[in-house]
């Protein structure tokens, strides 16, 4: 997977001309945006709470090693086994070894961006293990063989007719394109999987250091199934998802669902602390927690450290004018939108994702909605700077940028060119080569009007 300048442009072009997709993204994004505003408006002193949350995240990330060691100690005391993985390959191997040791063939998964990031499903299939996604949206895109197109609504690009076709293909039975019927079908098919799977895999929204707990939020209840029914539960958690104590967790949860879906809390906030106790009547015999680095630790102490404060709510996607047009798949990774534009180059390499720092108008909307007030526009600019310094962009783009820079640095040259384009009606000459319809330039430029002091 990658998103170079050319790849991003190609996929974005395709998305922009897909009217149905444009409507789907627009509707979803607008609902999320409105839901977020309404939900946050009921929180007393919400601005102050977000400042406080930023402080919490900053303080925690700055001293991550200490909190991870505390987390590990308390998780172990609760009976969980803690593993560390430097990269996706190590994480996959830990899970595959566990599955093989216990003779596990079927794995049920609840939605997890960390496992998407390391492409766990395809790796498990290669080792002869069958993973089944159980979040409705994730299951749909698993059946379709596609990556998610939104951090919290992975299948927003699918219509109910497309979903009915996928389900029909899977079960061989005819299913009407009715959303309730499709949901009931998912309940029926996946219930059997929950009950027969040998292992459940989840992500973790939060790891609580003071008790060694993993907090997993879902709305559908699949997160509870995956962590309660199979005899083994494996948590894959990015190392940045730690909260020192429950005081931090309360703030985190108060902002997470409101920012993501506009709910006061997700329907199920599930807290797992070790395997079932001897006196419990049900629950897993083993809990394994994999702490995944995958290049995260490299950004501590750099100008990109702030990105580790992200809680994956998706608010920045919904508000982003570029995401809303280009769609999630253009970002070439499970992480899309402004947060994807920053973390994909950082986690997977700027060379492979050199189109993403450009995929922004730098309007600042992402910073405005982020619950942890992460300054994504600043980091997008920093990545552009890195691209220039490391000569990462193709030579054509570099020449264009150099030319643009010289024009913009010299106002007289800029004026001349604007006049030239206007006089020679050059917009008409350019028109056949670009997709957007260009109106002719106005007779007088803005700068000319400004100089005359009349801007009516």
């Amino acid at each position: 997977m990658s998103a170079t300048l050319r790849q991003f442009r190609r996929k974005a072009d395709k998305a922009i001309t897909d009217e149905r997709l444009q409507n789907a993204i627009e509707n979803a994004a607008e609902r999320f945006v409105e839901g977020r505003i309404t939900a946050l408006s009921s929180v007393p002193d919400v601005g102050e709470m977000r400042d406080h949350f930023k402080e919490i995240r900053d303080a925690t990330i700055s001293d991550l090693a200490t909190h991870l060691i505390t987390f590990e100690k308390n998780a172990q005391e609760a009976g969980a086994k803690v593993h560390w993985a430097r990269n996706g390959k190590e994480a996959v191997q830990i899970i595959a070894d566990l599955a093989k040791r216990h003779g596990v063939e079927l794995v049920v998964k609840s939605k997890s961006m960390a496992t998407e990031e390391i492409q766990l499903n395809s790796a498990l299939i290669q080792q002869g293990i069958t993973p089944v996604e159980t979040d409705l949206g994730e299951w749909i895109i698993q059946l379709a063989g596609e990556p998610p197109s939104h951090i919290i609504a992975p299948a927003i690009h699918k219509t109910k007719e497309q979903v009915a076709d996928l389900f029909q293909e899977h079960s061989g039975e005819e299913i009407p394109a009715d959303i309730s019927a499709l949901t009931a079908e998912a309940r029926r098919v996946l219930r059997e999987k929950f009950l027969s799977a040998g292992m459940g895999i989840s992500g973790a929204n939060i790891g609580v250091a003071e008790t060694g707990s993993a907090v997993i939020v879902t709305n559908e209840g699949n997160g509870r199934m995956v962590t309660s029914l199979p005899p083994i539960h494996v948590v894959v958690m990015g190392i940045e998802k730690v909260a020192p104590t429950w005081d931090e967790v309360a703030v985190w949860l108060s902002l997470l669902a409101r920012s993501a879906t506009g709910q006061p809390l997700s329907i199920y906030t599930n807290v797992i602390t070790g395997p079932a106790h001897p006196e419990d009547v049900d629950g897993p015999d083993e809990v394994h927690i994999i702490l995944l680095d995958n290049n995260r630790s490299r950004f501590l102490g750099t100008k990109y450290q702030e990105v580790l404060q992200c809680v994956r709510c998706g608010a920045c996607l919904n508000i982003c004018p570029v995401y809303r047009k280009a769609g999630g798949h253009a970002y070439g990774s499970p992480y899309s939108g402004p947060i994807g534009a920053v973390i994909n180059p950082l986690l997977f390499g700027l060379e492979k994702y050199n189109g993403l720092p450009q995929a922004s108008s730098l309007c600042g909307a992402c910073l405005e909605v982020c619950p942890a007030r992460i300054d994504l526009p600043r980091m997008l600019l920093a990545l552009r700077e890195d691209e220039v310094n490391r000569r990462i962009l193709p030579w054509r783009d570099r020449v264009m940028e150099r030319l643009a820079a010289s024009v913009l640095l010299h106002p007289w040259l800029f004026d001349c060119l604007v006049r030239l384009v206007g006089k020679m009606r050059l917009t008409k000459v350019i028109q056949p080569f670009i997709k957007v319809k260009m109106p002719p330039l106005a007779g007088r430029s803005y700068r000319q009007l400004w100089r005359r002091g009349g801007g009516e």
Partner: protein
Amino acid sequence: MINARKEILKQLSSKSRKTKRPSPWRSRHESENLQKRFSLALENVKGEIYLASDLEEVLSILGDVLLELNAKKIVVSDEKPFRDIDFSARFPEVEWHVVGKSNGNLRDFCNSADVGITSADVALAETGSVVVSSGPGRSRAASLLSPVHIVILPNSKLLPDIFTWTANRGDDIPSQVVIISGPSKTADIEQTLVVGVHGPKRFIVILYSD
């Protein structure tokens, strides 16, 4: 993967900076009618609320609800408010499974039950949530697998919000704690809300005075 641990922690420690944690955020909800607040919030998330003056009235409400649901098989946890209630004597037409006491496979029973009945540790008024824990006499499956989950708890368990809950948390933590805020939901197909995907389709809370 001892090396992985060492390497990751070494990388993190080399850049780590001791910082002062901000002092905890505390509840900023003014004292209010918790029961009213809870009822409203619960209805907002499509849960159902009944208020009873005592445990006897709870049972009469429960009778009506079970009749409406046409419930034939019910799993009930073995915990405090239920200990003195003989459900099978009161509702003899229903097949009851008391967690940890009845014979037979608990999971199979829960999976085919019409209703799961539990109590809760506390309820959070702001979000219409109840907090349910695992432990002796309490089954994770009982509140999860059946299409209806009924929670019965006294008013004294109502707290203002999640901040009051985390601030008053005890030292011992059960293997599972789940904050339940409504029936199972999805909007994954065309952003259309459907109630009842994997978890219970109906979530009913009966509060009583104690």
